[in-house]
């Protein structure tokens, strides 16, 4: 991620690389707070009451999806019985470091909060595993395909807003070319390749772009062809984000029309992990996928 990114008005902070880091720090902070809360045997409701927040806010804090004020961290630590000054200041330092602004802040007006959280997690992830049934994944979309999809989703939006949304999507893709990119492992239903958003010309270019992306060493693409019949993920699209830190759990992200679901409880996550394992076992190998996409491109 390079130019034109926010954070420019904070001269002592490096630009964008920090945002990924901030997300991980928030997650680490959240994981620590959860451990402390559970060790103290305090419910999320009670913890929420302490800082005038809901139970679900506590859950978002503990999964690092939102930051929190230093004063709230102090109150929680006291509630959890952490009184030792040195240990307290370690957690509080972490809380301070984790409040760096994110690169997408200037697109905040376009982004619902639930999707901002995803951008943070995505840029912090070490591995992104995802199953898509409808659209080419955002990270792999061409500008024209992104525009076609965006216009469908925001039919009443003025042209300028559409362009900013498209720009935002393309900025996201810089993730793939940064120095230590995440491993991106995408499994797509054949429908993704067949539905020609933007028309056959746009779709052909999109498929060719997909073939180029598939050559990247950190990208793995697999397709589940129609001929395979049913597959393990009857549910629909989802992503599993994995982080390098051993302490951090995988997070499952499921997008809905007006919100998103984040799962980080082990039994839920493991259910999706099992499904993604089955899916990639059922899907075409990466080599066969390349041949398959070439064939679909010829037919489009």
């Amino acid at each position, binding site marked *: 991620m390079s130019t034109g990114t926010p954070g420019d008005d904070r001269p002592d902070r490096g630009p964008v690389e920090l945002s990924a880091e901030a997300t991980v720090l928030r997650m680490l902070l959240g994981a620590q707070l959860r451990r402390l809360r559970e060790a103290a045997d305090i419910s999320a409701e009670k913890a929420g009451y302490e800082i005038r927040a809901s139970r679900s806010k506590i859950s978002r804090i503990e999964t690092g999806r939102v930051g929190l004020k230093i004063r709230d961290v102090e109150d929680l630590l006291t509630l959890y019985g952490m009184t030792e000054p040195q240990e307290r200041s370690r957690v509080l330092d972490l809380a301070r470091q984790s409040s760096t602004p994110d690169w997408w802040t200037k697109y905040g007006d376009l982004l619902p909060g639930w999707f901002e959280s995803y951008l943070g997690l995505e840029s912090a992830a070490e591995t992104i595993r995802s199953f898509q049934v409808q659209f080419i994944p955002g990270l792999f979309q061409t500008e024209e395909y992104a525009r076609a999809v965006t216009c469908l989703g925001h039919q009443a939006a003025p042209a300028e807003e559409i362009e900013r949304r498209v720009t935002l999507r393309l900025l996201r893709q810089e993730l793939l070319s940064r120095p230590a990119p995440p491993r991106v*492992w995408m499994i797509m239903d054949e429908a993704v390749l067949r539905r020609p958003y933007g028309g056959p010309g746009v779709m052909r270019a999109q498929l060719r772009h997909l073939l180029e992306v598939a050559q990247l060493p950190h990208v*793995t693409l*697999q397709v589940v062809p129609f001929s*395979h019949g049913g597959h393990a993920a009857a549910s629909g699209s989802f992503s599993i984000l*994995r982080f390098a830190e*051993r302490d951090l759990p*995988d997070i499952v992200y499921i997008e809905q029309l007006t919100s998103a679901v984040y799962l980080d409880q*082990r*039994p839920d996550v*493991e259910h999706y*992990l*099992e499904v*993604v*394992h*089955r*899916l*990639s*076992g*059922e*899907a*075409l*190998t*990466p*080599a*066969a996928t390349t041949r398959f996409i070439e064939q679909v491109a010829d037919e489009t």
Partner: protein
Amino acid sequence: MKGITMSTDEAPPASSGGGRTEPPAFDTSRANQARVYDYLLGGKDNFAADRAAVDAWLEVDPELPFTVRSNRAFLGRVVRYLTAEAGIRQFLDIGTGIPTAGNTHQVAQGIAPETRVVYVDYDPTVLAHARALLTSSQSGATEYIDADVRDTERILEQAGQLLDYTKPVAITLLALLHAVPETDKPYDIVAALLDAVPPGSYLVISHAGSDLLDAGQHDSLMGVADRMIQNKIAYRSREQLAPFFDRTDLVSPGLVRVEEWRPDPGAVSTGRSTLWGGAGRKR
């Protein structure tokens, strides 16, 4: 290797005697060895049952994490030795496990990029990762076969599409044969594999040693394995392992605990593994 579900193909039985050749189901309610290793190596592709089995195992054998790490390090050193010093350019790696850092093809192709590597595993968790991630480097070639070690005929036939059996091949069976009980004829399996490759080929084995544990530990571990782990586990003594290496000359220092096999200069061992390891050169 194309095939989605090749398991129902003709797949001739490996050995005549009651060998079980159908792949294990993708069952996360019981631990399995691949995921247990993943967990112990710091991976996250494991499930509650795997972690529970590790916890129970650690009660009896606290050296397990060291053993698993040592086995991984042994793999690295042995592949490096075979590629850099013995001139091997073809590997048949059976019992691949869930890919992690330093897989056979990465080590070997890092030294000699033209090296060909065929991976074989029958575990469905491994299948998902291996098909997607153990991909070819530019000049060498890497393939994955979804097959059970008992099915030597199929393994050799499919591996033959990439490997040239007129030139030496290193066959690596790491932490694998202790999941093959006597009834499945492990000695016949190894003999069949060695038969297919020419003199100058290598056989590499690491194997849980019944004589590296005391009797009480051994019995308790077998209890844990029976109760909690899908794979049948059969520890063997050093003496029982020797016949695997019939028709080969063991590379110095012979059959030793894995961490003692040609350790890196200056390496200090911090524990004692429970795995025997060795490499033999076919006569």
